[in-house]
């Protein structure tokens, strides 16, 4: 196995393109897969020295370097203030040790249907920046994944940056994750919610679910139903049934179809009730 240690992006790109070339970012997935003999890389491109570890505010947007660790995201005031839905999700990832190594770019590139950063990035409608010797392109996160472990990254490309709009003060959000235990757990189901609230009326609703399909998915019909609806107990009861009909989960080692369906409804209901009650508390 050949290991390249490029000093800049331009140099890194010269090593990409070959079959069985893998990128080493945080290594928390790649090294385990090599140890498990799940993959046999011919070469590894170690991108640690590329200075892609940053969180910047750029006008209305937040730019996160692909090599930013999950722990850095978790402790970031910028993420906590402008992307709280992501902040909450990264706090529920792995363990402190894994969060220190694992990166946002790696979590996206591995394309796990249960990836914890991805449902919040769906709700934030994030753009993923890819670079290759051919140039640069940006892809919406909703169009990034094609199957479990599969995405639209070409062999000669890699992720350099994740960009999303700042959340504003009228936006409401929540992230829910169910697993076998609190730490070091892969989601049985996860749900990220975002929307705008005026009074008790919802708009621009976006709902993304993890671990209920071959990729993270939007629950579009459910979100559409909520748009311009006033949050009431009845609406919440109805929508928690709609989401159960919209998703098509499977039974696997982590959970069952029945549990995932029921919990999709329960998690949505729980989150929406919290929003409704906090609005009522504020108004009274």
């Amino acid at each position: 196995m050949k290991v390249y240690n490029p000093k800049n992006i331009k140099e890194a790109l010269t090593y990409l393109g070959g079959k069985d070339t893998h990128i080493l970012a945080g290594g928390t997935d790649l090294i385990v897969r090599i140890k498990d003999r799940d993959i046999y890389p011919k070469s590894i491109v170690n991108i640690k020295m590329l200075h892609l570890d940053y969180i910047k505010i750029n006008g209305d947007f937040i730019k996160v370097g692909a090599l930013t660790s999950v722990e850095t995201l978790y402790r970031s005031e910028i993420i906590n203030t402008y992307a709280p839905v992501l902040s909450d999700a990264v706090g529920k990832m792995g363990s402190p040790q894994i969060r220190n190594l694992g990166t946002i770019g790696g979590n996206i590139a591995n394309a796990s249907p249960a990836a914890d950063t991805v449902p919040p990035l769906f709700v934030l409608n994030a753009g993923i920046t890819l670079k290759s010797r051919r140039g640069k392109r940006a892809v919406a996160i909703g169009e990034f994944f094609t199957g479990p472990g599969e995405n639209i990254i070409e062999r000669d490309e890699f992720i350099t940056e994740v960009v999303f709009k700042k959340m504003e003060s009228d936006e409401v959000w929540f992230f829910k994750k169910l697993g076998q235990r609190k730490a070091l757990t892969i989601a049985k189901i996860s749900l990220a919610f975002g929307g705008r609230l005026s009074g008790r009326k919802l708009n621009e609703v976006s709902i993304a679910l993890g671990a209920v399909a071959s990729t993270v998915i939007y629950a579009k019909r459910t979100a559409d139903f909520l748009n311009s609806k006033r949050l009431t107990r009845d609406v919440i009861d109805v929508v928690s049934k709609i989401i159960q009909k919209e998703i098509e989960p499977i039974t696997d080692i982590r959970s069952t179809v029945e549990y995932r369906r029921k919990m999709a409804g329960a998690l949505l209901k729980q989150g929406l009730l919290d929003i409704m009650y906090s609005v009522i508390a504020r108004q009274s």
Partner: protein
Amino acid sequence: MIKIKFTVNSEEREIVTEPTRTLLSILREELGLTGTKEGCGKGECGACTVIMDGKPVPSCLVLACQLDGCEITTIEGLSENGNLDPLQKAFIEEGAVQCGFCIPGMIMSAKALLMRNPSPTEDEIKEAISGNLCRCTGYTKIVKAIEKAAKMIIHHG
């Protein structure tokens, strides 16, 4: 083979090794620092936790090619001039050790916590060791020992 320069327990080291060799293997087999244990080898158990540039990491998932210029602290680096670290003292005094296999990793996670947050709450302690498994399930005394060490450091400096 690559040449890497890094610091282990405040001592500069320069070694020539395979770029894909793990930090855990370098510590145990190259440098003879066998206090760091191998449990699962996949980052799930925390037994191999060391502090890298101030942060706890599983040394089984760090490769030699990522080490150049890094500062590593292992369990062997905690005592100074034969005096145990407050965490080590507190673990002994509280009887927080059963079989002992998870303890070096537990202490390194706790050390990283106290470096960042000298007076953690019980919940913060539990979160800091959430990546360390104790198969003897002796968590209560481990949490107590970490609370005690925090007090010892604040009172005695």
